[in-house]
């Protein structure tokens, strides 16, 4: 049979869903214990929320699922949420803006068209947003929270890459381009084409050298940034962003959090203004985040600093260890030797009592085999119950429901 599944869509099978739930549980537990609150936003949003300059790049926008709603004769398009952060910013503006600090988290799907249909067009992410603080300690908080979650998931060798959109944007300003050229260059850079930066030949060759210095070097401590700051050709306009970058980096140093500084690790979002970070493991990108101080005013809120991150569920599912043999293996299959109304009734009663006693219990009236550990047969003739332990290959009789439960307990 040919598949009827939509191109680029993905089914989560029981095993995947179990891994998904596990990731979600670990994520939620950590977020709640750090004082974050869970929210959900709708799948549909107006397109114009994402089109303002400084939100999504035109390249990303061209991959958005947009359409006219059934009442969309005005031409106002709606989209399947292409990004997790912008809807949260909207939610904050409309509902929570009186809060000085909002710590929010969510598990959501985001949609983006992908040409080949081989990659997922619907992706899941676990996101965290810290709205209302401009302190470097908040940037550090997010990185530590993400690391804690990834550690709880037993993902080893997580690499952290740091970059800084403020430094990058200040550097671009030094190229003294026309506003529209600058934004086009920035878009290309965010789409991953860093080449264009080195191809732009600035009139001031100091800036050219500086750019290649930034692009080619990788730092491991805040010392690297201090070294850059001390360079004679660093323009003053770059200083505030570099100071901020260095301050966060030294905080992370003090917290013994290892990272790599790679200015080219920023990808995708125009709305970042400060620190950007990215997590990867086994060569796979598993999360990213950053500071976006201008986003909330840009979409109609009052000036509010904010930062956040998202962990990508799809690659993480592939990275986590197969779960310890699921507890469900300890479940019970209840069947009856004759399917009379009486024995079916007894089966349901028995199953109910077993569930109350904490056992996962499945009913079967078709005589199939099962890999559950226990099978209890409801018999028409006494003894009323036969308890089989498949793991130990033992059989025991039971005279009542209570006795059957006790027998299972005895085996365990």
């Amino acid at each position: 049979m040919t598949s009827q599944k939509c191109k680029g869509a993905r089914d989560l099978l029981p095993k995947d869903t179990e891994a998904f739930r596990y990731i979600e549980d670990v994520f939620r537990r950590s977020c709640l214990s750090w004082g974050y609150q869970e929210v959900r936003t709708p799948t549909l949003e107006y397109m114009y929320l994402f089109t303002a300059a400084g939100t999504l790049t035109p390249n990303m926008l061209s991959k958005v699922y947009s359409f006219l709603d059934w009442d969309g004769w005005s031409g106002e398009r709606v989209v399947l949420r292409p990004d997790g952060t912008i809807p949260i910013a909207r939610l904050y503006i409309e509902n929570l803006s009186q809060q000085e600090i909002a710590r929010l988290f969510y598990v959501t799907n985001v949609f983006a068209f992908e040409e080949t249909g081989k990659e997922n067009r619907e992706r899941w992410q676990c996101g965290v947003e810290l709205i209302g603080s401009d302190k470097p300690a908040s940037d550090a908080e997010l990185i530590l929270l993400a690391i804690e979650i990834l550690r709880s998931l037993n993902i080893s060798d997580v690499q952290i890459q740091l970059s800084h959109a403020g430094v990058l944007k200040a550097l671009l300003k030094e190229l003294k381009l026309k506003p529209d050229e600058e934004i086009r260059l920035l878009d290309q850079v965010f789409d991953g084409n860093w080449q264009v930066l080195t191809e732009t030949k600035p009139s001031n060759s100091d800036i050219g050298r500086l750019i290649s210095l930034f692009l080619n070097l990788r730092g491991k401590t805040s010392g690297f940034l201090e070294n850059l700051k001390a360079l004679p050709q660093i323009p003053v306009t770059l200083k505030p962003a570099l100071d901020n970058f260095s301050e966060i980096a030294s905080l992370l140093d003090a917290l013994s959090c290892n990272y790599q500084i790679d200015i080219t690790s920023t990808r995708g979002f125009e709305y970042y203004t400060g620190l950007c970070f990215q997590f990867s493991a086994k060569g796979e990108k598993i999360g990213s985040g950053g500071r976006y101080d201008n986003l909330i005013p840009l979409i109609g809120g009052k000036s509010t600093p904010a930062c956040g991150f998202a962990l990508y569920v799809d690659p993480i599912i592939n990275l986590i260890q197969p779960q310890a043999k699921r507890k469900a293996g300890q479940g019970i299959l209840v069947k009856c030797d004759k399917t009379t109304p009486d024995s079916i009734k007894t089966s349901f009663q028995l199953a109910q009592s077993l569930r109350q006693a904490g056992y996962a219990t499945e009913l079967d009236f078709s005589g199939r085999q099962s890999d559950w550990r226990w099978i209890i047969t409801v018999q028409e003739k006494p003894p009323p119950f036969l308890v089989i332990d498949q793991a130990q290959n033992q059989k025991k009789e039971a005279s009542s429901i209570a006795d059957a439960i006790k027998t299972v307990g005895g085996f365990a």
Partner: protein
Amino acid sequence: MLTEGQLDYVRIALPKGRLLPATACLLKETELEFKDYTQGTRAYRLKSTKLPYLSAKIFQEKDIPIQVAVGNYDLGICSLDWIEELLAKYPASALIKVADLEYSKGNLYLAASRYRNISSLQELSTGQYSWRIVTEYPNLAEIAALNLRLRRFRIFPVWGAAEVYPPENADLALLWARDDSEIRAQSLFSLKTLLSSTAFLIANQESWQAKNFSQVIAYFSQGLEMKAKPWLKIKPDVAKSSNSFRPDFNEEKVWLALPDGHQQPPTSEFLNKAGLKLQGYSENKLNRRPRFNLDWVNVKVIRPQDMPLQVANGNFDLAITGKDWLLDHLCRFPSSPVVELVDLGFGQVKVVAVVSQDLPVANIDQLKQVQDVNLSPLRVASEYVNIADKYLHDNHVSQYKLIPTWGASEAFLPEDADLLIENTQTGKTLAKHNLKIMDTLFQSTACLIGNRNSVESLPKKEKIASLVESFRQAAEAN
């Protein structure tokens, strides 16, 4: 030279309309002549006079890139703007641009009215105003709007006459014109040239990889290398009216849209009978802004297909269109505020489901059974995309592909579609093309439509009511 036996059967899609004279000339000069490929021809399927393995079908230009991309045709000729319009939305289309045929030069312009104070592109990316863009190229318009970082915009796809909407009924138009002077003649000015276009020879990618049509390509190459290229001298006559006008932003004026095309003569006759005098609304010289004898009514002549959407958005208060187009709009937007105010009685057509005479089915259920055996999705061509979609839903046709067309839909059967949803007056044209009517969906006549909200809005309420009343009286007298 290959012998004929070794050559594959090759199909080429040729354009109707604007591109036809120059294309016909080029084909004639390069030995690729087709009999009956002339302006006003009634034939759709053409045979090459010299090459027995080569056949052609005539399409609306806009349909050609799609037909070639899906592989119904190996080759096609159309203008670059329509190719780019397809690629803007479906960049992975299996299309190859084989050769620039150089004729029919023009540009796609993003233009604003010189009467509205949009002075630069920068203005468009600031503020919360939602810019109204009318265009026959909605995909290119959307990409352009995104790239220009328009903060808020609404695209109104139209079937034609985009130039007449600004400044009162739209802010921007994305439209084709031969040059800047043609844009200026419409009292527009160009904010940006999006692309320069000429006629192109295109090929389906898989055909190109698998078939041998080198001989056909060679003839084209020969033509392009000729010294004298008479087809370059053929100037297509684009009947765009260029007239001066005064824009009218008076909020108390009633905006009325009148149809061009087939519906124009009967509408004109009807208005005469109703005692409503119009200057410049006749076949010989169409003014897209005719003058009414009532000075509180502003009139524009646009395509009837576009009217319901325009009325829904309040760009026009009243319009004369067909019930077919009203229904197509309501199928897409069920809660739209557009309502039929007066049935005008003329322009009677049936909207019908049509199949090939050769298909042994008498109704949709039998067609579904045939379909279940074939297991391939039903290919449905229609100008009425939303009516067709609803008809297929209502009849529980499980797998189908809708092929939107821009006229001349009967040419699609039987090779390029299985079912057609089309309008017909007598059914004679359908019979001539070896087609039969399988089902009648509804009867359509011309009607006056209005916007539920503007009909009740205070400053215009009485004016609209009196205009509607004179239409009603004339319709009853008919």
